[in-house]
């Protein structure tokens, strides 16, 4: 087999299932997670050369199980660990579990793992790393590359996250029904953050992050398959699909950012748009409606507009009002202000933005300056627009965004034959 892609996909799909089996059997998530990683690495090297085993899942369980015993042994030899001594000791006479015994719990296991790795006791950064490794089946090296930190640093982050789970005594089982909704929010939030981190297609080292958005979509698909009746899970998946659909048009040949209004819509992924629109259309009437579904509906309206001019801004504005009512935040208000400008004109939009001036959460936020610049440009006040574009450029921590904002300011400044807008010092 010369194509290793199918092997990788299969391994990533099987990773949480095998981890679930071993965690159940040994009652030690942290060690099982290490054992599964090693089994995955063994499979990734052997399968492409020797072909797929008869029962890939069983193969992984066997290898992981043997490795698990070695790990537990060496751990016990190193120091008498009471938490393990209290459990049944693995012994050689017990054979590895029959691979077909545990299939009934696979679906649950993947879900339990998602809940575990996205537990609110973990910081977002820890939850992201652990989820990508334990549920996504990525290696530490891959995750480290995606976040541009050394592998050793990422390994520490993951091992501390596992330690945290251990010391918090978080059990390997479905959350109680009364905690379920809060815990699911945490899962969706982590998947969303992973997507956001990869929601780019700029050139250079950031290119690797594209895989993160794909990975987030894969995990969201899995969550949706496991919880088909949950409307916010479906909403999140639709939001990701509809956002990712625009990514081919989001950057130009030199990696420069192209704003939504100026993107070549023929480069959008029509099949993805159809899928996302269908999903959110089927989901919205089912309810209850939450922030992910509302944002997916907004994304769908953008994606369905054949040209920027044909965008249904009144509908988008109405949805932002619903979103603001549902979960107010300065960023929602900012987006609503921009939508207000598109419906009622830039002056109305600037009035709406003025309300954010006193918000400490937005002070110094480059997005506020960028939005203001955009609205002043619409208004025809080039001088103020240029000043705000420059202020935004000085405050962003995204390089492609800074380039975009500087260019925008520079273009506006030279339009006037009377000469460039002077830089105010």
């Amino acid at each position, binding site marked *: 087999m010369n194509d290793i892609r199918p092997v990788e996909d299969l391994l990533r799909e099987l990773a949480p299932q095998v981890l679930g089996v071993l965690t159940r059997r040994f009652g030690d998530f942290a060690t099982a997670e290490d054992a599964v990683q090693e089994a995955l690495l063994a499979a990734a090297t052997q399968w492409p050369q020797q072909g797929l085993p008869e029962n890939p899942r069983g193969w992984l369980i066997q290898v992981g199980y043997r490795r698990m015993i070695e790990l537990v042994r060496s751990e016990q030899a190193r120091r008498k660990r009471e938490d393990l001594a209290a459990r049944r000791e693995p012994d050689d006479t017990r054979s590895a579990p029959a691979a077909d015994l545990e299939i009934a719990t696979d679906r649950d296991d993947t879900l339990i793992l998602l809940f575990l790795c996205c537990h609110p006791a973990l910081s977002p*950064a820890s939850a992201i790393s652990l989820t990508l490794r334990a549920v996504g089946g990525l290696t530490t090296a891959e995750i480290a590359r995606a*976040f541009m*930190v*050394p592998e050793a640093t990422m390994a520490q982050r993951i091992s*501390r996250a596992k330690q945290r789970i251990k010391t918090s005594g978080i059990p390997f089982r479905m959350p109680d029904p009364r905690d379920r909704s809060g815990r699911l929010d945490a899962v969706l939030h982590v998947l969303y953050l992973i997507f956001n981190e990869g929601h780019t297609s700029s050139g250079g080292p950031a290119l690797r*992050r594209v895989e993160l958005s794909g990975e987030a979509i894969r995990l969201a698909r899995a969550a949706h398959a496991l919880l088909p009746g949950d409307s916010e899970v479906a909403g999140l998946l639709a939001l990701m699909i509809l956002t990712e659909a625009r990514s081919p048009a989001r950057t130009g040949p030199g990696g420069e950012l192209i704003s939504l209004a100026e993107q070549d819509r023929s480069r959008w992924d029509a099949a993805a748009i159809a899928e996302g629109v269908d999903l959110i259309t089927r989901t919205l009437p089912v309810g209850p409606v939450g922030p992910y579904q509302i*944002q997916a509906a907004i994304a769908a309206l953008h994606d369905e507009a054949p040209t920027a001019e044909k965008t249904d801004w009144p509908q988008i504005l109405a949805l932002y009002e619903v*979103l603001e009512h549902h979960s107010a*935040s300065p960023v929602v208000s900012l987006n609503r202000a921009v939508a207000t400008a598109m419906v009622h004109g830039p002056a109305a939009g600037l009035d709406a933005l003025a309300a954010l001036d006193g918000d400490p959460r937005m002070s110094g*936020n480059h997005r506020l300056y960028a939005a203001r610049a955009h609205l002043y440009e619409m208004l025809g006040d080039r001088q103020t627009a240029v000043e705000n574009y420059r202020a935004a450029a000085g405050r962003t921590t995204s390089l492609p965004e800074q380039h975009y904002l500087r260019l925008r300011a520079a273009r506006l400044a030279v339009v006037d034959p009377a000469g460039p807008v002077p830089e105010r010092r």
Partner: protein
Amino acid sequence: MRAPVMGAGFEEQNVKYMLLMQFSAATADFPSIDTWSPQEIQAHIGFMRDSNAKLAADGEMVDGQGLAGADQARIVRAGVGGAPVVTEGPFAETKEFLAGYWIVDCETPERAVEIAAHLSTAPGPGGHPLNMPIEVRPIMSAPPQEL
């Protein structure tokens, strides 16, 4: 938990910061390391080693390097046809001198400040904290949002 919003920025994503150990005539308010005792130098080196190990163990370290002395510095400019024109150090007119830097990956800006404050306390003469200035600068590593 805050409601997630597309394009909400990265308040919750890790951000990388560069911590610059930068001295100038005004800020280097302690005697040059050339005048310290061996024990004082040892203590300083030990502090830096332990601090770096702690940053790595905390999953925050990206990189940390000391720079060679100012007298090894070269200023390079392109001259005729792009050929390098090199000026040797040291430079009397140098106002600021970068002695070393760290790159850390932090969950909050407050955490970056906390790390910088800790590094600032590296011991100097008499084992007293130097309280040297550490400049904290975000690195442009945030992924862009759709505009």
